[in-house]
């Protein structure tokens, strides 16, 4: 009887020890996975969605006068900035910062497209938009569309805009979202970069995104 009891006790100790090791290893693994997930989704100035969200098709008019659709988002990351050319401070400053950030990305920059979506179709004709964005960077693209199309795209991408009549009615301005929208190479909404923007942090966040 006695040796058998000792044997059983040893078995129990063994099983408990193995279970403890397994639980400990699983916990460590979980922590490492969480740490990695946290690192990947953590941006200096922005947020990545836990799950990228599909974008349904849309049709804007590109700065070359041709359609700019969902298909144009495929195969590379896109950072979308909504604004308008009659915005004399925030829009040129943000586009300049995007250019400076892109210059810091080195070879990664080839996998990033910058799209300026004008929310002022009345004043921003495609050829005017082309001249405007190309001033900042030859590779920047712009697009616009009738207000209803932009509103629908805004619902998908999470940007809003409102026309804000000026005192004389003629010189209206457009209130617009300040975030930059991140779209992944599968044309899915991946997250947002939030102001204030600085070339250095923008570059760091874009690098995090491009290295995913």
């Amino acid at each position, binding site marked *: 009887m006695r040796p058998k009891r000792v044997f059983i006790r040893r078995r129990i100790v063994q099983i408990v020890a193995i279970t403890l090791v397994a639980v400990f290893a699983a916990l460590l693994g979980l922590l490492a996975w969480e740490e990695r997930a946290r690192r990947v989704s953590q941006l200096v100035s922005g947020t990545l969605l836990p799950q990228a969200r599909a974008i349904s098709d849309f049709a804007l008019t590109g700065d070359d006068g041709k359609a700019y659709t969902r298909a144009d988002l495929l195969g590379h990351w896109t950072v979308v900035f909504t604004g308008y*050319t009659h915005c*004399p*401070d925030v829009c040129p*400053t943000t586009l300049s910062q995007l250019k400076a950030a892109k210059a810091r990305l080195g070879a990664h920059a080839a996998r990033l497209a910058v799209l300026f979506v004008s929310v002022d179709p009345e004043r921003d004709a495609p050829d005017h938009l082309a001249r405007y964005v190309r001033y*900042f960077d030859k590779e920047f693209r712009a697009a616009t569309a009738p207000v209803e199309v932009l509103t629908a795209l805004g619902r998908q991408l999470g940007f809003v805009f409102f026309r804000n009549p000026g005192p004389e009615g003629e010189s209206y301005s457009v209130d617009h*979202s*300040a975030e930059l929208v991140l779209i992944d190479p599968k044309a899915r909404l991946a997250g947002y970069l939030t102001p204030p923007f600085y070339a250095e942090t923008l570059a760091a966040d874009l690098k995090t995104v491009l290295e995913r």
Partner: protein
Amino acid sequence: MKIIRAFSCLLASASIPCLACDGLDIADAYVMESPPGAGVLAGFATLRNSGDLPITISRADSPDFSAVEFHALVRKDGLIRMVVEGSLTVPPHGALAIKSGERHMMLFKPARDFRAGDRVTIRLFCGTGTRELQMPVEKNG
């Protein structure tokens, strides 16, 4: 630091007393270079008042632009809005920064495309006098 002093007294005829914004110093004035064909430009400066009374700038104009307004940027609920400010007041022995990201002189319809190195003229109206500024156009960043 670039201090731009009164030019208006030079321009005004000698018979008119020079009351131009006494105590107002303007530093770091510049206009941000914008893409060709831009319909509006933004001007920035730091206004300092060395006097004992507030200085109110009631309006501005320019031979280089169709109109000049003072605009503040308001950020609320993730939106950026430009708000027209009817006038600017520089407190006594204080300063007012017309600074990118916060406030700008909104310069409408430039007479031509201004490039970095060009200068534009802006006239500030304060009380009974005016102050003329020559603002250099500078590249952003």
